[in-house]
């Protein structure tokens, strides 16, 4: 499905990163990153494995602490906010994990209810059920409500993972390798779902991937992470209109040139 035109507000960055550095032991992963994610935008972060793409969104969600630099999410500086403020901020951010990270001891219904009942304690049973059914319907998996995660396929798990984040109506979505390990048809379905989420829930998203089809179908803007920094940023065609030997193989491999 072709991506519908979206309204991106370039005056309103929901995530603003300046001079971000992160190292693990002696290995410097992020070496001074600057990045803005604008309201309503799907930003794809491309890069080779181990270049720190997932580290970047883990810092944005407060799972990892930056070594240096400033990370502002919805106007709050991640490094300086209190634990309670971080908790409140996280409700406004949805994080879809690479392996879905579904709670495997709970049914799909319980997985979806888990963040809802703990963050909106005044909801009635009926309202909880309605919320669960709505997000399941949004990802097209209403029939799986009473199944265990182990009974779901890879694509279904991804969808339920996304549904679990949507249940809190997040303003920002962070997708970590949404199409990794899926067949091409399911990849396209997931890409369509990402676009649908952007339209329907009016979210701004960072999509981490090395799948160029995903990048092309979902990204309003692409940022190429190479050697710990964003070397190329722009539309899909702009990013790949280069002879840079670090970028070209990406395109050639994905589109079998």
């Amino acid at each position: 499905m072709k991506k519908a035109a979206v309204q991106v507000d370039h005056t309103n960055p929901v995530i603003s990163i300046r001079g971000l550095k992160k190292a693990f032991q002696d290995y410097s992963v992020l070496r001074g990153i600057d990045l803005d994610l604008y309201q309503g935008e799907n930003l794809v972060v491309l890069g080779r494995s181990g270049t720190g793409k997932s580290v970047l969104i883990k810092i944005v969600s407060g799972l990892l602490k930056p070594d240096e630099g400033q990370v502002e999410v919805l106007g709050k500086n991640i490094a300086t906010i209190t634990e309670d403020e971080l908790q409140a901020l996280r409700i406004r951010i949805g994080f879809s994990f690479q392996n879905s990270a579904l709670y495997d001891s709970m049914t799909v219904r319980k997985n979806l209810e888990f963040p809802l009942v703990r963050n909106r304690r005044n909801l009635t049973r009926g309202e909880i059920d309605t919320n669960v059914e709505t997000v399941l319907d949004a990802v097209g998996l209403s029939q799986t409500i009473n199944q265990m995660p182990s009974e779901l396929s890879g694509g279904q798990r991804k969808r339920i993972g996304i549904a679990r984040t949507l249940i809190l109506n997040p303003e920002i979505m962070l997708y970590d390798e949404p199409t990794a390990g899926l067949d091409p048809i399911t990849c396209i379905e997931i890409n369509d779902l990402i676009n649908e989420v952007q339209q329907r829930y009016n979210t701004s998203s960072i999509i981490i991937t090395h799948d160029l089809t995903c990048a092309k179908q979902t990204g309003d803007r692409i940022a190429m992470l190479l050697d710990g920094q964003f070397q190329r940023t722009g539309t899909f065609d702009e990013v790949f209109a280069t002879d840079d030997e670090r970028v070209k193989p990406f395109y050639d491999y994905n589109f079998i040139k």
Partner: protein
Amino acid sequence: MDNTQSITKGTPKSISKLKQSFMDFFLSLYNINKFILRFFREAFVPPFELKEVIRQCYEVGVRSFTLISVTGFIVGVIFTKQSRPSLSQFGAESWLPSLVSIAIMRALAPLVTALIASGKVGSSIGAELGSMRVTEQIDAMEVSGTKPFKFLVCTRVLATTLTIPILSTYTGFVALFGGYLNVTQNEGTTWTTFIQEVFEPLTFTDFVASLIKSIVFGFTIGIVGCYQGYNSSKGTEGVGKAANGAVITAMFLVFIEEVIIVQITGWFR
């Protein structure tokens, strides 16, 4: 000349290795203390996860029930059987119920329960939380604005702390029943006489000490299992290490605590 050189070169290396081991030990001690303090900071502050505590209590109880029943019974029978020859040397077989009750209620019931629970419950908690850490389920809870520590750790530690004293009391009675069967078979003692002789030497201090001991053991098994699992390293190896570490550390601590509590109880007798 060569030997002298290797000695002078080797000494600083071994010293730095020793220094590193000490540093690691104190660092893990600091982290465990921080983990325990976090438990007390979060466990008794609302909102409470009561449903999950009850579910975990059920899990702990059910997981260990059969094994504890069988082991408790066998401990009672074996201990009675093994003690008889020593007492019969002095013609004191009639003291057997008292001896059995003191040994079981003061030491064996809490200890046996704790050791079995360390193996069954501790390892299971370590492996479960470890695998949740590895598969990013704990991270997923964190980023969804929920408190995984409260939901996963506090509930499990509370469950082991509450359930193991109950299991321990149950083990005591099952072991006494085993002892009774052996005594009645050999000495023909009636149930009423056996029970009278069982409770005669026991004091209030014995019951309180036994209860406190079980609570401490339960807390230790829960907190060690949770600490190992919650902080497990990534990969399947991390899960195995967490489960293994939970059992070994909990068993070791249970024995240390046993010695300390026995010493303290001795001052009140």
